[in-house]
């Protein structure tokens, strides 16, 4: 994995995240969570997401809700700050999506992560 300005590069097509999530029967989400946690921890400059929790968030309720809540509350605002755009709190939306459709929540977060590398 490449490191760009201390942030690991994790650029994927959001549609690929959704498709791989389905094709691998959810296994890809475990890998995706680990990589996303790495990016958000680097963005925050501290460990907001434990990698062990990220693994379990790939498959277990309500750990996935917690994972996406923290991404929405601490992760994405740090990303917005980095991009120089107004910070948004998407914690509730992501938490609910994480509960009902974790693959869709991952797609949304991936599209936000991709903005870092544009």
């Amino acid at each position, binding site marked *: 994995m490449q490191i760009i300005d201390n942030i690991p590069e994790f650029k994927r097509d959001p549609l690929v995240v959704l498709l791989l999530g*389905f094709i691998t*029967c959810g296994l890809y989400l475990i890998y995706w969570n680990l990589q996303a946690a790495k990016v958000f921890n680097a963005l925050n400059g501290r460990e907001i997401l434990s990698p062990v929790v990220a693994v379990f968030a790939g*498959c277990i309720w309500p750990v996935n809700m917690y994972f996406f809540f*923290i991404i929405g509350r601490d992760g994405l605002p740090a990303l917005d700050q980095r991009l120089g755009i107004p910070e948004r709190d998407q914690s509730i939306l992501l938490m609910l999506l994480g509960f009902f459709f974790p693959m869709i929540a991952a797609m949304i977060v991936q599209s936000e992560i991709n903005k870092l590398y544009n």
Partner: protein
Amino acid sequence: MESRREIVAITALLLFLLMPLVILLFDPGADHLQSSQSFCPFKMLTGLPCPGCGMVKSMVSLYRGAWMESLEFHLFGPVLVLFFTSTLVVKIVGLIRKKDFPCRWLYNPRVAWSVAIILGIWHLTRLVSFILTHNLEQILKESIWS
């Protein structure tokens, strides 16, 4: 800010640990749980289990004292109950004493990858075994399309 994050974590842990007790309260034999449609969105769509499928059943069995049944439903059920209970205790004590007890292994990438690999291998084995022992009709019966 930090204590708010801890409260969110404690709430999630409590939800996880208490949910099977609530199920047992309304369905002591857990018969409905065994026969009803899974709430897992992936299983509802495909009929195939996701890596977390069987976790609630595993925990319910564990709370009923059926250890082997619990392990059959999900290998990580008893492990997770132990892991989350200890994390909950550490977090509550930390919140009360306003002191941070760092669980370093929680942030160790090697531990995370080891857990991910074990979970992955176990899930693949379960998936292959599920496909080999079920025909298409039986798989679809597990989904919402039957």
